[in-house]
């Protein structure tokens, strides 16, 4: 984030916005931050404490922007100091200030990190609306996948400096490229050993049980199944069983945490269910949904392409 803003120099690399090259280590180009038109919001928003809200917003454009204050619903706070504002308000002031710069790209660094859980969701939804209306290229860094899903058109998953996958949220859910991506999306990731079979492969899970995948594979693998792709079944007639640890409601669905798996099922019309803690549950899934990841050099699991 800081590198894109021009605050750090990369050892090697290239940063360009359209035709404009901002940084190119090979050609020794490095534009200073003030010459890139970025709207940068650091994690704590970086509001100037010695200036009031209106003066903060004025900083970039050197003139008052009542329109921005209106748009972000902070006009009534124009004379307040940053320390008097709540987390959500500070974020809006920081956004207004960044927009006053008329940036060509918006950089949001963990925009919800400084917020408490209650404000977080509301602020996130408002930000999602704002970003849609702004139509500005926006780079957002977050470690919370559900924030990314709500806000992003495309998500880049970076693990230990390595780009694992760059795709639309739906694609990450459907076809995670690595085990890390799968875990990020909340999928079940389990180790096992695969043996080819006529319809694909049979994966013997390390903790016991078997699942059938439509992907042919053999040897040590990791399988990926999304919680809603697993269905409870009679333990005696299932190829894999697990024990229920906790059952909880989540937005009209039931999230069941078992020893090795987490599954999601819809509730019946009465909102009742027959699952109890400590109960053994059989699980089944469509073979097409049992994705197989093969180990790669360096211990990373990557998908069969």
């Amino acid at each position, binding site marked *: 984030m800081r590198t894109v803003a021009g605050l750090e120099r990369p050892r090697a690399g290239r940063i360009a916005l359209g035709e404009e090259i901002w940084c190119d280590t090979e050609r020794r180009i490095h534009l200073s931050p003030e010459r890139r038109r970025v709207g940068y919001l650091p994690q*704590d928003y970086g509001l100037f*404490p010695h200036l009031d809200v209106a003066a903060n917003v004025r900083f970039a454009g050197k003139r008052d922007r009542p329109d921005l204050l209106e748009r972000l619903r902070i006009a009534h706070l124009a004379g307040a100091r940053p320390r008097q504002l709540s987390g959500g308000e500070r974020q809006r002031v920081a956004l207004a200030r960044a927009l006053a710069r008329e940036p060509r790209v918006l950089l949001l660094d963990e925009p919800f990190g400084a917020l408490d859980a209650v404000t977080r969701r509301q602020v996130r939804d408002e930000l999602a609306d704002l970003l849609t209306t702004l139509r500005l290229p926006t780079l957002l860094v977050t470690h919370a996948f559900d924030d990314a899903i709500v806000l992003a058109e495309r998500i880049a998953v970076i693990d230990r400096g390595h780009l694992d996958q760059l795709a639309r949220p739906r694609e990450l859910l459907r076809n995670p490229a690595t085990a890390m991506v799968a875990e990020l999306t909340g999928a079940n990731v389990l180790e096992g050993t695969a043996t080819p079979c006529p319809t694909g492969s049979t994966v013997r899970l390390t903790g016991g049980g078997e699942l059938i995948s439509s992907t042919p594979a053999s040897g040590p693998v990791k399988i990926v199944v999304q919680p809603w792709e697993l269905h409870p079944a009679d333990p005696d007639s299932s190829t894999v069983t697990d024990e229920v640890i906790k059952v909880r409601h989540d937005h009209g669905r039931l999230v069941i945490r078992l020893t090795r798996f987490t599954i999601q099922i819809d509730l019946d019309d009465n909102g009742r269910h027959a699952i109890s803690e400590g109960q053994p549950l059989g699980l089944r899934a469509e073979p097409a949904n049992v994705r197989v990841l093969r180990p790669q050099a360096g211990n990373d699991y990557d998908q069969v392409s």
Partner: protein
Amino acid sequence: MSAAARSGDAGSQKPQWMTAAWRVALAVGATLVIVMVMAFLMLPIVALITYQPLHDLVDGFGSSVVTDAILVSLKTNGIAFAIMIVLGTPFAYILARRQFFGRTVVITLVEVPLVMPPAVAGLGLLVAFGRFGLLGHTLTALGIDLAFTQAAVVLAILFVASPFYLRGATAAFEAVDPTLIDVAGTLGAGPVRRLLRVAIPLASGGIGAAAAVAFARGIGEFGATILFAGSFQGVTQTLPLAVYSLFDANLDQAIAIGVLLIIVSAAILLASKLLIRSWTSSISTSSYLDEGSSFVQP
């Protein structure tokens, strides 16, 4: 609970009255020490202020020696102070913000004048800038004669006082959240605007306090001045130098100057304390410091 367990000593059998007596002795001893230290520090000041009635004190300011000294002090300190602020502030900012090769060395060197005896500092200035000194020939060739002039006073003050300012200002700039200055850059502010509009306002209290300390040191400067600039009334004789030259012949006037300098020093000290206090509260973004907030959303 047995008596032994209560007193906390396993083996010894100290009677309770001895422990109490020991505590009283400690309290009395502590009070005595405090009183003695305070008396030692305050007595000279009180003695000076109460030496003569106010009327005589004010009369002492009428003499030409005193008024000349006031003018010289004002002028030389004013100029030195201005140079120190204008050149020293950007220097302190760069020192605080940038990591460059040899930074630690520079910081240490800047503080050297602090530990030099003032007389030695004066000697050093003489040897460097005097007519027969290191730069002497160059300066004479340019027609500049520095030693024993008013300019020499300014240089002496600068030499001994600016390390105080640089040290304090650098620390003040370092205390500013670097992210704020970074953000200012992304908002389009160049280095000058970042310094003037963000760094200095945010570091203002610390800078002010550092300036106050440096100013106080400059006003009181004696050793380097007398060696490098000499003590010529109306030209290089600052207030401290006048005290020295007067106290044989006219103790009353010397004391009058002394009282004046005490008042000035006290005012500077008070100002620097107030500056620091208002600074720390004004640059904080934490909400707990602001109680009566009317803007916070429910």
